[in-house]
């Protein structure tokens, strides 16, 4: 079950779109991709899971690790478009970063605007 990953830089944040199956066999690909993206220290990391069809605990661990890394670096982290089967796994192990999961792009935009302000303010200071 393949996993394809694309990412798109936004203003002060990067959106990563893993598509397919995030499992014990593919989680390293996402791990490496995230490591590469976070090297450029984006203000926030957004994972758009619209096309993610499957996730196992290995995949969940990658996302939690990414969240922790972003938090440690003072950045933002958000998940959007969780499919029911993905949400179910997160819910079972109570791993949802609850404030930062969004159903709609509008909600996410508000969150990212807040992050941007924070980042811009830091830069100006």
């Amino acid at each position, binding site marked *: 079950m393949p996993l394809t990953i694309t990412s798109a830089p936004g203003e002060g944040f990067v959106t990563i779109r893993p598509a397919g199956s995030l499992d014990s066999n593919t989680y390293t690909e996402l791990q490496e991709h995230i490591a590469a993206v976070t090297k450029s220290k984006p203000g926030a990391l957004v994972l758009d899971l619209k096309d993610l069809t499957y996730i196992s605990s290995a995949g*969940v661990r990658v996302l939690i690790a990414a969240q922790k890394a972003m938090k440690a670096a003072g950045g933002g982290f958000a998940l959007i478009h969780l499919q029911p089967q993905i949400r179910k796994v997160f819910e079972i192990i109570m791993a949802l970063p609850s404030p930062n999961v969004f159903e709609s792009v509008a909600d996410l935009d508000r969150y990212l605007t807040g992050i941007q302000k924070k980042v811009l303010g830091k830069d100006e200071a």
Partner: protein
Amino acid sequence: MTPTVALTAARWRSTIAALAACVAVWLAIAPSAESSLPSPPFTVSMDVSPDGAGNRVTVRVEGLPALTTAAAPEAFDLYVAQLQGFQTAVVLTTSGAWSPTRVSVQRGLSTSGLAPIAAGWTERRFGSMHLMIIGARPGTDPLVRSNWLFRPILRNLSLRARRADDPQPSEALGVVGVLGGLSAIAVGIVLWLPRRRHPKPSASALIALAGVLLAVPAPVDAATTLRVGTYPNPPLIFRDEQGRPQGIYVDVLEHVARQERWTLEYVEGAWDQGLERLRRGEIDLLLAIGYSPERSRQFEFSHELLIENWGQVYAPRGANIHTLLDLTGRRLAVVRGDIYYAALQSTHETLKVFPTFVEVSDYADTLRLAAQGQADAALVPRIFGAWAARDSKAEKTSIMFSPVELRFAAPKGRGKEVLDALDRHLVALKADKGSVYHRSIRAWLEGVRTLNFPTWLNPFWVAGVVLGAGGLAVGLNFLLGWLVRRRTRALRVEMAARAKIESELRIAREIQLSFVPRTYPPLSGWEIHGDLRPAREVGGDFYDCFLLEDGRLYFALGDVSDKGVPAALFMAVTKTLLAASAVTGDSPAAIVDRVNRRTVLANEQCMFITAFCGILDPGTGRVVYTNAGHNPPLTLRADGAVEVLEHGRAPALGIADDAQYGFYDIVLRPGDALFMYTDGVTEATDRAGAFFTDERLRAAVAGYRGRSAEHLAGAVLGEVTAFAGGAPQADDIAVLVIRRAAGPLRLRSTLTEIDRLAEEVMQVGREHALPEELVSDLRLALEEAVANVIRHGYGAREDGEIRVSFHVTPEAITATVEDDAPPFDPHARPDPPLPPEGADASGVGVYLIKRVMDEVDYRRNGSCNVLTLTKRIGRATCR
């Protein structure tokens, strides 16, 4: 109901009388008396030939020269005693008191005058007749043993030249018939009057109708003319000395033709000519044609079989031909275009049997060639053989094969109505034991000791005539009142009796259902499931299975040739005999052979049983089997292919004690299933009377690949029930499924194998049409389990093996994960701290498994970890 009671009583009386007669005859010819007597000093030959009124029976006695011993007096009387079915004894002499006009026997034979003597008489009856020739002291009662001079000679004669359903050509009979008809009308009216409140057609109304039909000849007004192909194949069809067509087929066909008002035009020829005429459409119907799938592509066949036939090899005495293998290099006389010849040709490569075939054009010629030494053996149908071989020097060998259903055939695309009508009539004729069909078979095939009353002499009829005449004399009023009282009384008694019988039948049903196993031997890697559904309270189908001492599985499925209580009793005996025979651990052929001999011995009712019997070696999956005339089972392969187990069909049990049973084998690989069934499945009918058919069954079975044995059996029977659509079940149904569980998916201990695991889960989901969410949960749980084994169980080892297998039932799916890593019990682990406490979500795999599965079971089996995951299927997702 009253007539039924009266008839039953009449039958009882005649049965008791017959029994008494049997005892008397047995006493008369008791072996002790016989053995003390010398052999008769003469030879007796008998001859039966048809004449205008019936059969001319001629008895010819030729004396031996040495008639001068002390045992042979100077003179004695010869009596020909006729023992019809051992039920009556009629002594025929010229001067005796019993029947002076029927036979002339020369009296006072002296030792000096030994010229051959002959006596003859015309016999109007047909069927089987037993004659006893007694040499007795002159002027004494010939049936008293102490008067006998020699051991009596017993002979069996078959009177077959008359047609079974011809009325008796007697002038007196006409009078009796008219009288009978009129009286029956009277009886019918009398019996019918008190019933008018019940508008149902009653037995008495039928009697009245029968009376009318008998008194008024049916007008012959033929609408259809059928050209009917015949060929010499006695006693099924042949021409007698006058050139008239005769035989079982002719009896049945002419009966149907009268009912349907067909005119028949017989076209005589050799067998292959008949076949060619049918192919070209020059005839409308061909008689005595064996059904085969190839032929059914060329011709239209009726569905109902007239009689079963098979190939039988005859050889002259001393020819030393006992098995098929003995035929190699010998000359075998065969008939061109014959179905048994074709069967032998198509299999002789496989069987390594290479006779030299000598082709002739009719069956009689094959026997003649064998008798004259121009061939070493002859291949004929068994029915013809039984008929013709008495007059031939060739004898029956134990070689028989290729049972064939004899039916009617019409040219392709034609004659549908004619065939349908024949089918319709045949079903009715077969159901009635007194019909022309049964009478004809008894009359033409020898050795069946039954007393046949012609229609006009039916005890019921005679009772009707007497009762009717008496009733008219006494007066209608009196009779009416009496009948009403009697009927009410009889009805009350009968209702009580019926209630008792019904309750007993319900109990019998419970007992019978408890005969067949409902729980199955626990055989690792195998699934077994059977189902039994009698058409009435009890039935003749059965299945059985149990483990033999050596760990192999014996199984059998069978069908007794009848329904209801008689079949149920026979079923119980046969199943028990088979089981008792099976515990020896012999091959299925030996098991079946033993049971066949026993069944033939003790089979007064001429019932037979078709059975499929096998032994499975669970280790290798090899099934050794024997098929005694049963519907060939189906094999559903793991890839969905359905095969028909056509091999090795031998005669049904109880038919011939010298039937030969071979055994064949088949290997069931993981995922393969063996589907055994009785004809109640394929012959289930819908409301319009159409059959479920072999084709539908094959398609149904193919639709359930990958399903468990229980699921397969249940789902196919479900389709049969749905097909019937509420039409009553006509025949008993039994199925037995033995399935080798699909082999496990074998994964190496590396994470890249997770892909194959996911593919497999999704495949299982598709095959069983499982809901997406369930598949996703199962995939998650299995990935977590397998990933744990790879990471923690095998550690860095990449050569470990993990085996995953699935078991799907309509209620649940169970996945089993086996590995050879060190013990790991998921239940022994506490649930991990969950985020945010356990912030990296490590060790949540097992927790996830427990949450998405309904049951998680772990056990250590030797050096294996066995983890069983079960998820219930919430709704009916399966077909």
